[in-house]
Protein backbone atom coordinates (compact mmCIF):
# COMPACT_ATOMS: atom_id res chain seq x y z
CA UNK A 1 0.00 0.00 0.00
CA UNK A 2 1.31 3.41 -0.92
CA UNK A 3 1.69 6.04 1.76
CA UNK A 4 -1.14 8.04 0.24
CA UNK A 5 -3.47 5.08 0.53
CA UNK A 6 -2.37 4.49 4.10
CA UNK A 7 -3.01 8.12 4.96
CA UNK A 8 -6.46 7.95 3.38
CA UNK A 9 -7.21 4.74 5.25
CA UNK A 10 -5.99 6.23 8.51
CA UNK A 11 -8.09 9.37 8.21
CA UNK A 12 -11.18 7.37 7.25
CA UNK A 13 -10.69 4.95 10.14
CA UNK A 14 -10.44 7.88 12.56
CA UNK A 15 -13.63 9.36 11.09
CA UNK A 16 -15.55 6.13 11.49
CA UNK A 17 -14.32 5.55 15.04
CA UNK A 18 -15.26 9.13 15.88
CA UNK A 19 -18.75 8.71 14.40
CA UNK A 20 -19.36 5.45 16.25
CA UNK A 21 -18.10 7.05 19.45
CA UNK A 22 -20.54 9.93 19.14
CA UNK A 23 -23.34 7.45 18.53
CA UNK A 24 -22.41 5.39 21.59
CA UNK A 25 -22.37 8.42 23.83
CA UNK A 26 -25.69 9.64 22.50
CA UNK A 27 -24.28 12.88 21.09
CA UNK A 28 -25.41 12.11 17.57
CA UNK A 29 -28.70 10.55 16.61
CA UNK A 30 -28.36 7.40 14.55
CA UNK A 31 -30.11 9.21 11.74
CA UNK A 32 -27.22 11.68 11.37
CA UNK A 33 -24.54 9.04 11.72
CA UNK A 34 -26.20 7.34 8.77
CA UNK A 35 -26.04 10.59 6.84
CA UNK A 36 -22.29 10.91 7.38
CA UNK A 37 -21.50 7.22 6.92
CA UNK A 38 -21.68 7.29 3.10
CA UNK A 39 -19.05 10.04 3.08
CA UNK A 40 -16.70 8.01 5.27
CA UNK A 41 -17.36 4.80 3.42
CA UNK A 42 -16.80 6.41 0.03
CA UNK A 43 -13.50 7.80 1.31
CA UNK A 44 -12.62 4.34 2.60
CA UNK A 45 -13.33 2.65 -0.71
CA UNK A 46 -11.37 5.16 -2.75
CA UNK A 47 -8.38 5.11 -0.42
CA UNK A 48 -8.18 1.35 -0.19
CA UNK A 49 -8.81 0.24 -3.76
CA UNK A 50 -5.77 1.21 -5.83
CA UNK A 51 -6.51 3.08 -9.00
CA UNK A 52 -10.25 3.00 -8.53
CA UNK A 53 -10.44 6.76 -8.71
CA UNK A 54 -8.42 6.81 -11.94
CA UNK A 55 -10.46 4.03 -13.53
CA UNK A 56 -13.80 5.58 -12.72
CA UNK A 57 -12.65 9.01 -13.89
CA UNK A 58 -11.52 7.52 -17.16
CA UNK A 59 -14.80 5.71 -17.60
CA UNK A 60 -16.84 8.85 -16.98
CA UNK A 61 -14.54 10.98 -19.12
CA UNK A 62 -12.94 13.16 -16.47
CA UNK A 63 -9.35 13.98 -17.36
CA UNK A 64 -8.18 14.89 -13.88
CA UNK A 65 -9.12 12.16 -11.32
CA UNK A 66 -9.04 14.38 -8.23
CA UNK A 67 -11.77 16.42 -9.88
CA UNK A 68 -14.04 13.39 -9.56
CA UNK A 69 -13.27 13.27 -5.85
CA UNK A 70 -14.13 16.93 -5.44
CA UNK A 71 -17.29 16.55 -7.48
CA UNK A 72 -18.47 13.62 -5.38
CA UNK A 73 -17.56 15.34 -2.13
CA UNK A 74 -19.35 18.53 -3.13
CA UNK A 75 -22.43 16.67 -4.32
CA UNK A 76 -22.65 14.69 -1.06
CA UNK A 77 -22.13 17.81 1.04
CA UNK A 78 -24.81 19.67 -0.89
CA UNK A 79 -27.28 16.85 -0.30
CA UNK A 80 -26.42 16.75 3.39
CA UNK A 81 -26.87 20.52 3.70
CA UNK A 82 -30.21 20.33 1.99
CA UNK A 83 -31.24 17.56 4.36
CA UNK A 84 -30.25 19.75 7.28
CA UNK A 85 -32.31 22.64 5.95
CA UNK A 86 -35.29 20.36 5.77
CA UNK A 87 -34.72 19.10 9.30
CA UNK A 88 -34.23 22.61 10.65
CA UNK A 89 -37.51 23.65 9.10
CA UNK A 90 -39.30 20.84 10.89
CA UNK A 91 -37.62 21.66 14.17
CA UNK A 92 -38.48 25.35 13.92
CA UNK A 93 -42.13 24.59 13.31
CA UNK A 94 -42.21 22.26 16.29
CA UNK A 95 -40.54 24.90 18.45
CA UNK A 96 -43.28 27.31 17.47
CA UNK A 97 -45.90 24.81 18.53
CA UNK A 98 -44.14 24.30 21.85
CA UNK A 99 -43.83 28.03 22.45
CA UNK A 100 -47.53 28.50 21.77
CA UNK A 101 -48.49 25.62 24.03
CA UNK A 102 -46.47 26.92 26.96
CA UNK A 103 -47.59 30.50 26.58
CA UNK A 104 -51.25 29.63 26.29
CA UNK A 105 -51.05 27.18 29.16
CA UNK A 106 -49.43 29.86 31.33
CA UNK A 107 -52.17 32.28 30.44
CA UNK A 108 -54.88 29.78 31.25
CA UNK A 109 -53.29 28.70 34.51
CA UNK A 110 -52.48 32.18 35.69
CA UNK A 111 -55.93 33.59 35.33
CA UNK A 112 -56.08 33.71 39.10
CA UNK A 113 -52.89 35.66 39.71
CA UNK A 114 -52.70 39.37 39.13
CA UNK A 115 -49.28 39.56 37.51
CA UNK A 116 -48.23 37.49 34.51
CA UNK A 117 -44.79 35.90 35.02
CA UNK A 118 -41.82 38.07 34.16
CA UNK A 119 -41.07 37.83 30.48
CA UNK A 120 -37.68 36.33 31.17
CA UNK A 121 -39.08 33.65 33.43
CA UNK A 122 -41.70 31.94 31.35
CA UNK A 123 -42.77 28.73 33.10
CA UNK A 124 -39.62 28.64 35.21
CA UNK A 125 -37.30 28.69 32.23
CA UNK A 126 -34.51 31.27 32.00
CA UNK A 127 -34.59 33.62 29.08
CA UNK A 128 -32.68 32.63 25.98
CA UNK A 129 -29.23 34.08 26.71
CA UNK A 130 -28.40 36.81 24.22
CA UNK A 131 -25.35 36.23 22.05
CA UNK A 132 -22.18 38.10 22.94
CA UNK A 133 -21.77 40.37 25.91
CA UNK A 134 -24.62 42.77 25.38
CA UNK A 135 -27.04 43.12 28.30
CA UNK A 136 -30.52 41.69 27.77
CA UNK A 137 -32.57 43.90 25.54
CA UNK A 138 -35.00 46.13 27.37
CA UNK A 139 -37.07 46.81 24.32
CA UNK A 140 -40.65 45.62 24.51
CA UNK A 141 -41.47 42.58 22.46
CA UNK A 142 -39.45 39.95 24.21
CA UNK A 143 -36.12 38.29 23.64
CA UNK A 144 -34.38 38.96 20.39
CA UNK A 145 -31.67 36.37 20.01
CA UNK A 146 -30.48 36.89 16.53
CA UNK A 147 -31.50 36.29 13.06
CA UNK A 148 -33.28 39.09 11.27
CA UNK A 149 -33.81 36.31 8.78
CA UNK A 150 -36.54 35.01 11.05
CA UNK A 151 -38.67 38.12 11.52
Amino acid at each position, binding site marked *: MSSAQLAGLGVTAICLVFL*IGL*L*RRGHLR*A*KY*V*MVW*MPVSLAMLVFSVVPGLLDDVSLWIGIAYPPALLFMLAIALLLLICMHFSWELSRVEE*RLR*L*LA*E*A*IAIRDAEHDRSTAMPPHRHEV*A*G*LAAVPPAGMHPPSSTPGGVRDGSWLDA
Partner: protein
Amino acid sequence: MDIVGTPVAGPARTLAIIPALNERECIGAVIEHLRDSLPEVDVVVVDDGSTDDTAAVAAAAGARVVQLPFNLGVGGALRAGLKFARRNGYTHAVQVDADGQHDPSHVRQLLDALDAGAALAVGSRFVRDAGDYEVGLVRRLAMRLLSWLVAILLGQRIEDTTSGFRAFGPEAIEMLADRYPRDYLSDTVETLLLVGYRGLPIVEVPVQMHGRAGGLPSARNARLAYHYVRMVLVIGATASLNARRARRPGGAR
Protein backbone atom coordinates in the same frame (compact mmCIF):
# COMPACT_ATOMS: atom_id res chain seq x y z
CA MET B 1 -41.05 23.10 34.53
CA ASP B 2 -39.51 20.26 36.47
CA ILE B 3 -39.63 17.19 34.27
CA VAL B 4 -36.75 15.44 35.96
CA GLY B 5 -38.23 13.35 38.74
CA THR B 6 -36.75 11.54 41.65
CA PRO B 7 -36.57 7.74 41.67
CA VAL B 8 -39.91 6.22 42.43
CA ALA B 9 -40.45 4.90 45.93
CA GLY B 10 -43.42 4.16 48.12
CA PRO B 11 -46.39 1.85 47.83
CA ALA B 12 -46.92 0.03 44.53
CA ARG B 13 -48.99 2.03 42.08
CA THR B 14 -49.47 0.99 38.49
CA LEU B 15 -50.07 3.14 35.46
CA ALA B 16 -51.34 1.93 32.12
CA ILE B 17 -49.87 4.00 29.30
CA ILE B 18 -51.82 4.07 26.06
CA PRO B 19 -50.08 5.87 23.20
CA ALA B 20 -52.75 7.00 20.76
CA LEU B 21 -52.84 8.66 17.38
CA ASN B 22 -56.31 9.34 16.00
CA GLU B 23 -57.99 6.49 17.84
CA ARG B 24 -61.26 8.13 18.81
CA GLU B 25 -63.27 5.09 17.71
CA CYS B 26 -61.58 2.48 19.89
CA ILE B 27 -59.98 4.41 22.71
CA GLY B 28 -63.14 4.76 24.82
CA ALA B 29 -63.84 1.04 24.81
CA VAL B 30 -60.20 0.14 25.51
CA ILE B 31 -60.12 2.46 28.53
CA GLU B 32 -63.39 1.16 29.91
CA HIS B 33 -62.33 -2.46 29.47
CA LEU B 34 -59.05 -1.72 31.22
CA ARG B 35 -60.68 0.09 34.12
CA ASP B 36 -63.24 -2.68 34.57
CA SER B 37 -60.68 -5.50 34.56
CA LEU B 38 -58.06 -3.67 36.60
CA PRO B 39 -59.67 -1.00 38.77
CA GLU B 40 -56.49 -0.43 40.78
CA VAL B 41 -54.55 0.58 37.65
CA ASP B 42 -54.68 4.22 36.58
CA VAL B 43 -54.83 4.95 32.89
CA VAL B 44 -53.05 7.70 30.99
CA VAL B 45 -53.54 8.22 27.29
CA VAL B 46 -50.66 9.90 25.54
CA ASP B 47 -52.21 11.74 22.64
CA ASP B 48 -49.44 11.77 20.06
CA GLY B 49 -50.58 14.79 18.09
CA SER B 50 -53.99 13.48 17.07
CA THR B 51 -55.97 15.59 14.67
CA ASP B 52 -59.27 14.17 15.91
CA ASP B 53 -60.79 14.37 19.38
CA THR B 54 -59.03 11.29 20.80
CA ALA B 55 -57.99 13.29 23.86
CA ALA B 56 -61.52 14.39 24.66
CA VAL B 57 -62.93 10.88 24.19
CA ALA B 58 -60.20 9.47 26.43
CA ALA B 59 -60.81 12.03 29.16
CA ALA B 60 -64.54 11.34 29.03
CA ALA B 61 -63.84 7.63 29.48
CA GLY B 62 -61.97 8.38 32.70
CA ALA B 63 -58.33 8.44 31.66
CA ARG B 64 -55.75 11.10 32.34
CA VAL B 65 -54.50 12.62 29.12
CA VAL B 66 -51.02 13.79 28.17
CA GLN B 67 -51.44 15.74 24.99
CA LEU B 68 -48.27 16.10 22.96
CA PRO B 69 -48.27 19.24 20.79
CA PHE B 70 -47.01 17.27 17.79
CA ASN B 71 -46.39 13.69 16.73
CA LEU B 72 -43.34 12.01 18.25
CA GLY B 73 -44.07 8.38 17.43
CA VAL B 74 -44.70 5.49 19.82
CA GLY B 75 -41.27 5.83 21.41
CA GLY B 76 -41.78 9.51 22.03
CA ALA B 77 -45.25 8.94 23.46
CA LEU B 78 -43.95 6.16 25.71
CA ARG B 79 -41.16 8.29 27.10
CA ALA B 80 -43.65 11.03 27.86
CA GLY B 81 -45.89 8.47 29.55
CA LEU B 82 -43.00 7.07 31.59
CA LYS B 83 -41.97 10.59 32.65
CA PHE B 84 -45.56 11.13 33.73
CA ALA B 85 -45.41 7.87 35.68
CA ARG B 86 -42.17 8.80 37.40
CA ARG B 87 -43.30 12.28 38.20
CA ASN B 88 -46.56 11.09 39.70
CA GLY B 89 -45.13 8.36 41.88
CA TYR B 90 -46.09 5.28 39.90
CA THR B 91 -43.88 2.29 40.65
CA HIS B 92 -45.02 0.14 37.76
CA ALA B 93 -46.18 0.91 34.25
CA VAL B 94 -47.66 -1.12 31.42
CA GLN B 95 -47.87 -0.20 27.75
CA VAL B 96 -51.21 -1.00 26.12
CA ASP B 97 -52.23 -0.47 22.51
CA ALA B 98 -55.07 1.93 21.76
CA ASP B 99 -56.67 -0.30 19.15
CA GLY B 100 -57.74 -3.09 21.49
CA GLN B 101 -55.22 -5.68 20.36
CA HIS B 102 -53.89 -6.09 23.88
CA ASP B 103 -56.18 -7.97 26.25
CA PRO B 104 -56.40 -6.44 29.74
CA SER B 105 -56.42 -9.91 31.28
CA HIS B 106 -52.86 -10.32 30.04
CA VAL B 107 -51.91 -7.07 31.76
CA ARG B 108 -52.40 -8.88 35.05
CA GLN B 109 -49.96 -11.57 33.91
CA LEU B 110 -47.35 -8.99 32.95
CA LEU B 111 -47.68 -7.28 36.31
CA ASP B 112 -47.36 -10.62 38.10
CA ALA B 113 -44.09 -11.20 36.24
CA LEU B 114 -42.87 -7.85 37.57
CA ASP B 115 -43.85 -8.84 41.10
CA ALA B 116 -41.87 -12.04 40.63
CA GLY B 117 -38.75 -9.94 40.09
CA ALA B 118 -38.61 -8.94 36.45
CA ALA B 119 -37.68 -5.36 35.58
CA LEU B 120 -39.30 -5.68 32.17
CA ALA B 121 -42.07 -8.11 31.26
CA VAL B 122 -42.70 -8.62 27.55
CA GLY B 123 -45.99 -10.02 26.29
CA SER B 124 -45.07 -12.32 23.43
CA ARG B 125 -47.05 -14.18 20.89
CA PHE B 126 -44.99 -17.34 21.08
CA VAL B 127 -47.35 -18.99 18.65
CA ARG B 128 -46.98 -17.37 15.26
CA ASP B 129 -50.45 -16.79 13.91
CA ALA B 130 -51.57 -16.87 10.31
CA GLY B 131 -51.25 -13.13 9.80
CA ASP B 132 -47.49 -13.24 10.09
CA TYR B 133 -47.05 -15.38 7.02
CA GLU B 134 -48.64 -12.75 4.85
CA VAL B 135 -45.46 -10.83 5.38
CA GLY B 136 -42.71 -11.43 2.82
CA LEU B 137 -39.99 -14.00 3.33
CA VAL B 138 -37.20 -11.44 3.22
CA ARG B 139 -38.82 -9.43 5.96
CA ARG B 140 -39.38 -12.45 8.15
CA LEU B 141 -35.80 -13.60 7.78
CA ALA B 142 -34.48 -10.12 8.41
CA MET B 143 -36.46 -9.81 11.63
CA ARG B 144 -35.38 -13.28 12.64
CA LEU B 145 -31.76 -12.17 12.18
CA LEU B 146 -32.37 -9.12 14.35
CA SER B 147 -33.87 -11.29 17.08
CA TRP B 148 -30.88 -13.57 16.87
CA LEU B 149 -28.51 -10.62 17.31
CA VAL B 150 -30.43 -9.48 20.35
CA ALA B 151 -30.39 -13.00 21.78
CA ILE B 152 -26.61 -13.20 21.38
CA LEU B 153 -26.04 -9.87 23.10
CA LEU B 154 -28.49 -10.47 25.93
CA GLY B 155 -27.59 -14.10 26.48
CA GLN B 156 -31.32 -14.72 26.45
CA ARG B 157 -33.69 -15.69 23.69
CA ILE B 158 -36.55 -13.22 23.25
CA GLU B 159 -39.21 -14.51 20.89
CA ASP B 160 -41.07 -11.33 20.15
CA THR B 161 -38.51 -8.54 20.03
CA THR B 162 -40.92 -6.07 18.45
CA SER B 163 -43.76 -6.59 20.89
CA GLY B 164 -45.28 -3.36 22.15
CA PHE B 165 -47.10 -5.06 25.00
CA ARG B 166 -44.72 -4.52 27.91
CA ALA B 167 -44.73 -3.82 31.63
CA PHE B 168 -42.01 -1.85 33.39
CA GLY B 169 -40.78 -2.12 36.97
CA PRO B 170 -39.36 0.77 39.04
CA GLU B 171 -35.77 0.52 37.80
CA ALA B 172 -36.89 0.26 34.20
CA ILE B 173 -39.15 3.29 34.58
CA GLU B 174 -36.35 5.27 36.19
CA MET B 175 -33.98 4.63 33.30
CA LEU B 176 -36.40 4.60 30.38
CA ALA B 177 -38.17 7.80 31.42
CA ASP B 178 -34.96 9.48 30.26
CA ARG B 179 -33.70 7.11 27.60
CA TYR B 180 -36.66 5.51 25.88
CA PRO B 181 -35.65 5.37 22.21
CA ARG B 182 -37.81 7.33 19.79
CA ASP B 183 -37.13 5.75 16.42
CA TYR B 184 -39.18 3.02 14.81
CA LEU B 185 -37.89 -0.46 15.72
CA SER B 186 -35.61 1.10 18.35
CA ASP B 187 -38.57 1.71 20.60
CA THR B 188 -39.05 -2.02 20.90
CA VAL B 189 -35.77 -3.75 20.10
CA GLU B 190 -33.33 -1.22 21.55
CA THR B 191 -35.34 -1.00 24.76
CA LEU B 192 -34.67 -4.68 25.36
CA LEU B 193 -30.95 -4.06 24.98
CA LEU B 194 -30.99 -0.97 27.19
CA VAL B 195 -32.69 -2.89 29.99
CA GLY B 196 -30.55 -5.99 29.51
CA TYR B 197 -27.26 -4.07 29.46
CA ARG B 198 -28.13 -2.68 32.88
CA GLY B 199 -28.28 -6.22 34.16
CA LEU B 200 -32.01 -5.96 34.76
CA PRO B 201 -34.03 -9.16 34.30
CA ILE B 202 -36.33 -9.45 31.30
CA VAL B 203 -39.15 -11.97 31.32
CA GLU B 204 -41.33 -13.06 28.43
CA VAL B 205 -44.98 -13.87 29.07
CA PRO B 206 -47.02 -15.76 26.48
CA VAL B 207 -50.11 -13.82 25.43
CA GLN B 208 -52.58 -13.75 22.62
CA MET B 209 -53.42 -10.61 20.77
CA HIS B 210 -56.64 -9.78 19.01
CA GLY B 211 -57.07 -8.51 15.51
CA ARG B 212 -54.23 -7.81 13.15
CA ALA B 213 -51.00 -9.59 13.97
CA GLY B 214 -48.82 -6.99 15.67
CA GLY B 215 -45.05 -7.27 15.65
CA LEU B 216 -44.53 -6.62 11.97
CA PRO B 217 -46.88 -3.85 10.95
CA SER B 218 -47.35 -3.17 7.27
CA ALA B 219 -44.69 -0.49 7.13
CA ARG B 220 -43.57 0.55 3.70
CA ASN B 221 -40.57 -1.46 2.63
CA ALA B 222 -38.30 1.55 2.28
CA ARG B 223 -39.09 2.76 5.79
CA LEU B 224 -38.52 -0.68 7.30
CA ALA B 225 -35.29 -1.15 5.36
CA TYR B 226 -33.92 2.20 6.49
CA HIS B 227 -34.75 1.60 10.15
CA TYR B 228 -33.45 -1.94 9.93
CA VAL B 229 -30.05 -0.74 8.71
CA ARG B 230 -30.13 1.97 11.36
CA MET B 231 -30.91 -0.64 14.02
CA VAL B 232 -28.02 -2.83 12.96
CA LEU B 233 -25.72 0.20 13.10
CA VAL B 234 -26.95 1.20 16.56
CA ILE B 235 -26.76 -2.35 17.87
CA GLY B 236 -23.23 -2.69 16.52
CA ALA B 237 -22.08 0.63 17.90
CA THR B 238 -23.57 0.14 21.34
CA ALA B 239 -22.92 -3.58 21.72
CA SER B 240 -21.95 -4.54 25.19
CA LEU B 241 -21.38 -7.73 27.13
CA ASN B 242 -22.94 -6.35 30.30
CA ALA B 243 -26.11 -8.35 29.93
CA ARG B 244 -24.25 -11.64 29.59
CA ARG B 245 -21.98 -10.80 32.52
CA ALA B 246 -24.96 -10.04 34.71
CA ARG B 247 -26.56 -13.37 33.86
CA ARG B 248 -23.57 -15.41 34.88
CA PRO B 249 -23.83 -16.69 38.47
CA GLY B 250 -22.01 -14.21 40.64
CA GLY B 251 -21.80 -11.77 37.74
CA ALA B 252 -21.96 -8.13 38.72
CA ARG B 253 -23.60 -5.28 36.80
